[in-house]
């Protein structure tokens, strides 16, 4: 198992009590082991078949950290003294034996720890082999020299005999007892939690082994053929031991060996068993060698089988996990935001069930950087057996592209879970999947929030909006459109709903004679076809007997599939207001026009008086000639011809006057402003004469035509000229002129310059305001009306001061579109 990061675990503290308890346990075990060693001693040979204390010490050192070893050394001293004092002579040997016992354990533990990756586990061939070589062979071999030396030195005896007995005894004890103690702590828990059948089988195995052992090592009855060698009979043990090794692993194998050793020792002491015929000392040695020869391959076999089995289990486990991983990964690939919740719940359940967790919870990290539980899975309480350790909890952060999105909180049933090695990295893998799912969920939530914002905006518009596909079919409409579509009694292309062919609807209306429909259909078609970027029009539509006006605008939909967005807003009210305003403007224009004509009365009278005077004079001259009897026919014809001319002249004056006075609808016509100016100047001839003012005209030839109403533009010119005449005044200045100019400067530009006093500073804009006047009799409407007329013609009007003296009034109106300058 790879070492886990520290923050994953809440490791229970190893307190002082635990250390002290262990020390007492080691001392007691040492004492009991030594007593057992003495019990197993052959009465004839002063050496035990098994000597448990050394193996107990070896197991202790393998199971505990090196830094605590000194505690056990101290703890064992009293136990050693209790056992040896009074038994062993001389007393100095007691200390020597203490040292030699420890030396074996230390050499064994250091050897195993040096070479094995897991000193307390013998579940692979390598670990088992290291244990057998280091603890089972080398340590007894080395320590037995010291032991034998101490014994011979302090008590005497054959060094080689003592070394031999010590060596075999220690090897056998290490191989059987030490391995049993070490593995019991690990496998015992497994055995406790194992299935019922397995426990039963192990009980049967133990019974069979005991029975066979008794037969081989203890039985001495008539039912055993006397001529059958006991060594042959001993082979009966092999299948049972193989059964233990193969089915139950190394722990069971060494436990079985221990049992067999105990039985064999007991049999040997009583002169029974396969080696009963040998002398006592040789009997023990033979027994030990035989057992060692069986133990080493058996333990290796058990380790190999266990390793293979675990590898198989690990493989199955990995395959299952990979299947789980694949399932979970694929689950989240194509999911809508709604399905993600269910999928995450399912994922948590599968994770919990796979690892036998107690509880799995997914937390989301809020914007305020706080965790809130989103989904949780709770294992069934009865589903897990209470383990020897308390439940652990740990948390895995959920990351997506480096951002922390939440965490996975897990409570395990037992710690660590036994299910598989590397489970933490597996949980991390699943956490990665959940992290991506969470990221996807958040991204989709964000998209949904943005979309709901967009649709809320669309829904709140009072303008009616419809989205068309490339073919002109409606694919989406907003609330305002739907509301209007449900109004009764309306039948026009403005009315149709989703899936209707909007463009076709306009084309049909066009065929049915709707004057606007043709232009609308063409405009929509051009936008859809990408020919133009926007189209807008205002059109009337009769509904419920009322005429309603709509402003329609079509813009392309910016997406690869094409299409367009149509918006329709009702502009009836605005249009009515505009029409009212136009009417008001006309009335005002007419009013100011007639009042202007009033100002011109005197000069108009002069203009009319000239021909009338001539007519009267001619007519009366003719009558007088006839009265006098003169009949000069040529003279009379000349007179009549003059009268006709003068009458026409008077008629023209009247006609011009009536043009300005009559109230009529404005009409838009192409106009030549040069001609228009000349006409107005004619109207003013008398006035100019009266005021002794000369008009200078600088008219640009080939001026483009403008589109407009003749009378209204005449009124503008008239107003400007009258203003200029007023400004020039009746002074004694001899060369008083007004200059009228036309120019083409991207629009038709007309200016009227006078030589009066000019405008007061700051009044250049003010003069166009209504009721602004400098004349005692003026109303101040002339220029205001002129401005409204020019603006209605899409033009501009403004005033400037001349460099020398006087002011110039300008206006500019756009040229008629089809009219181009020659």
């Amino acid at each position, binding site marked *: 198992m790879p070492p886990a990061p520290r923050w994953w675990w809440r490791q229970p503290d190893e307190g002082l009590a635990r250390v002290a308890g262990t020390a007492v346990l080691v001392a007691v075990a040492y004492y009991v082991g030594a007593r057992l060693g003495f019990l197993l001693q052959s009465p004839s040979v002063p050496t035990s078949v098994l000597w448990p204390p050394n193996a107990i010490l070896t197991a202790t050192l393998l199971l505990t950290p090196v830094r605590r070893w000194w505690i056990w050394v101290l703890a064992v001293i009293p136990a050693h003294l209790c056992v040896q004092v009074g038994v062993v002579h001389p007393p100095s040997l007691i200390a020597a034996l203490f040292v030699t016992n420890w030396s074996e354990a230390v050499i064994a533990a250091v050897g195993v720890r040096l070479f094995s990756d897991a000193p307390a586990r013998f579940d692979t061939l390598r670990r088992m082999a290291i244990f057998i070589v280091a603890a089972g062979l080398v340590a007894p071999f080395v320590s037995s020299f010291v032991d034998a030396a101490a014994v011979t030195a302090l008590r005497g005896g054959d060094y080689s005999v003592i070394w031999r007995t010590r060596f075999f005894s220690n090897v056998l004890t290490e191989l059987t007892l030490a391995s049993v103690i070490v593995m019991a702590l690990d496998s015992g828990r497994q055995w406790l939690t194992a299935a019922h059948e397995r426990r039963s089988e192990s009980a049967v195995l133990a019974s069979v082994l005991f029975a066979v052992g008794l037969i081989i090592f203890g039985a001495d009855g008539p039912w055993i053929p006397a001529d059958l060698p006991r060594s042959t009979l001993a082979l009966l043990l092999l299948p049972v031991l193989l059964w233990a090794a193969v089915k139950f692993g190394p722990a069971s194998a060494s436990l079985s060996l221990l049992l067999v050793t105990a039985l064999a020792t007991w049999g040997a002491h009583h002169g029974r068993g396969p080696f009963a015929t040998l002398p006592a000392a040789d009997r023990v040695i033979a027994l030990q060698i035989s057992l060692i020869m069986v133990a080493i391959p058996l333990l290796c076999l058990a380790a190999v089988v266990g390793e293979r089995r675990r590898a198989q289990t690990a493989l199955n486990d990995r395959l299952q996990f990979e299947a789980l991983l694949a399932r979970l990964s694929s689950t989240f690939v194509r999911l809508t935001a709604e399905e993600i919740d269910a999928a995450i719940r399912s994922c948590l359940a599968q994770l919990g069930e796979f690892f036998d967790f107690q509880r799995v919870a997914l937390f989301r990290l809020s914007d305020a950087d706080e965790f809130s539980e989103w989904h949780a899975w709770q294992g069934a309480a009865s589903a897990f057996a209470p383990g020897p350790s308390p439940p652990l909890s740990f948390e895995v952060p959920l990351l997506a592209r480096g951002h922390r999105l939440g965490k996975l909180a897990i409570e395990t049933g037992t710690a660590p879970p036994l299910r598989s090695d590397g489970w933490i990295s597996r949980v991390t893998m699943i956490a990665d999947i959940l992290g991506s799912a969470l990221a996807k969920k958040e991204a989709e939530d964000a998209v949904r929030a943005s979309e709901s914002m967009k649709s809320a905006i669309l829904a709140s518009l009072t303008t009616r909006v419809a989205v068309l596909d490339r073919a002109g079919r409606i694919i989406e409409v907003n609330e305002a459109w739907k509301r209007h579509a449900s109004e009764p009694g309306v039948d026009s292309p403005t009315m149709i709903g989703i899936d209707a062919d909007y463009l076709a609807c306009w084309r049909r209306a066009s065929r049915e004679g709707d004057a606007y429909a043709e232009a609308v259909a063409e405009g929509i078609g051009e936008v859809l076809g990408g020919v133009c970027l926007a189209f807008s029009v205002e059109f009337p539509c009769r509904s419920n007997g009322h005429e309603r006006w709509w402003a329609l605008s079509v813009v392309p939909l910016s997406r690869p599939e094409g299409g367009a967005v149509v918006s329709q807003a009702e502009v009836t009210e605005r249009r009515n207001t505009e029409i009212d305003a136009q009417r008001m403007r006309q009335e005002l224009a007419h009013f100011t026009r007639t009042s202007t004509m009033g100002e011109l009365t005197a000069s108009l*009278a*002069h203009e009319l008086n000239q021909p009338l*005077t001539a007519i*009267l004079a001619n007519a009366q001259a003719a009558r007088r000639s006839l009265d006098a009897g003169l009949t000069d026919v040529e*003279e009379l014809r000349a007179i009549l011809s003059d009268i006709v001319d003068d009458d026409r*002249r008077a008629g023209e004056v009247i006609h011009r006057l009536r043009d300005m006075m009559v109230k009529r609808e404005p009409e838009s016509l192409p106009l030549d402003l040069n001609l228009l100016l000349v006409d107005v100047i004619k109207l003013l001839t008398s006035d100019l*004469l009266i005021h002794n003012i000369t008009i200078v005209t600088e008219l640009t030839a080939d001026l483009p035509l403008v589109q407009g109403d003749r009378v209204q533009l005449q009124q503008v010119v008239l107003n400007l000229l009258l203003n200029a005449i007023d400004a020039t005044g009746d002074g004694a200045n001899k060369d008083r002129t007004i200059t009228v100019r036309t120019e083409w400067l991207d629009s038709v530009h007309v200016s009227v310059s006078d030589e009066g006093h000019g405008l007061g500073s700051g009044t250049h804009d003010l003069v166009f305001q209504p009721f602004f006047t400098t004349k005692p009799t003026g109303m101040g409407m002339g220029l205001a009306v002129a401005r409204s007329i020019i603006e209605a013609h899409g033009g501009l009007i403004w005033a400037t001061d001349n460099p020398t003296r006087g002011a110039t009034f300008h206006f500019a109106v756009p040229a008629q579109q089809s009219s181009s300058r020659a």
Partner: protein
Amino acid sequence: MIEDAKVVFVVDDDHSVRRGLERLLRTAGYRVTTFVSARDFLERADCAQAACLVLDIRMPGQNGLDLYEALLDGGYRIPTVFITGHADLLMAARAMKLGAVDFLPKVFDDEALLTAVRAAVDEPPPTAAS
């Protein structure tokens, strides 16, 4: 009759009015010379010949009243009948003050003009300006 007919000068910028007045005065037995403007008059007229001057007030350039004053200043006192299309009381008063025979607003009757012209012609012959 023609020999001793009185000469009437007519000054008016309007062509038709000039012709109409010329015919009318001729039917009344006067010899008529017409001028289109004050300047034309000053260039061509022989003031000593004139028995009467029919003078329009409103004309481009120098107006009738100014011409009349210039003539007075030059020592020519021709009996003058003013005519105008733009009746103006102040002008009438000024004309009469300067010694005009009559002031006729257009349009006027033949009798009104002929009476005025007759009165002018019958005035004592011009004397040298004092």
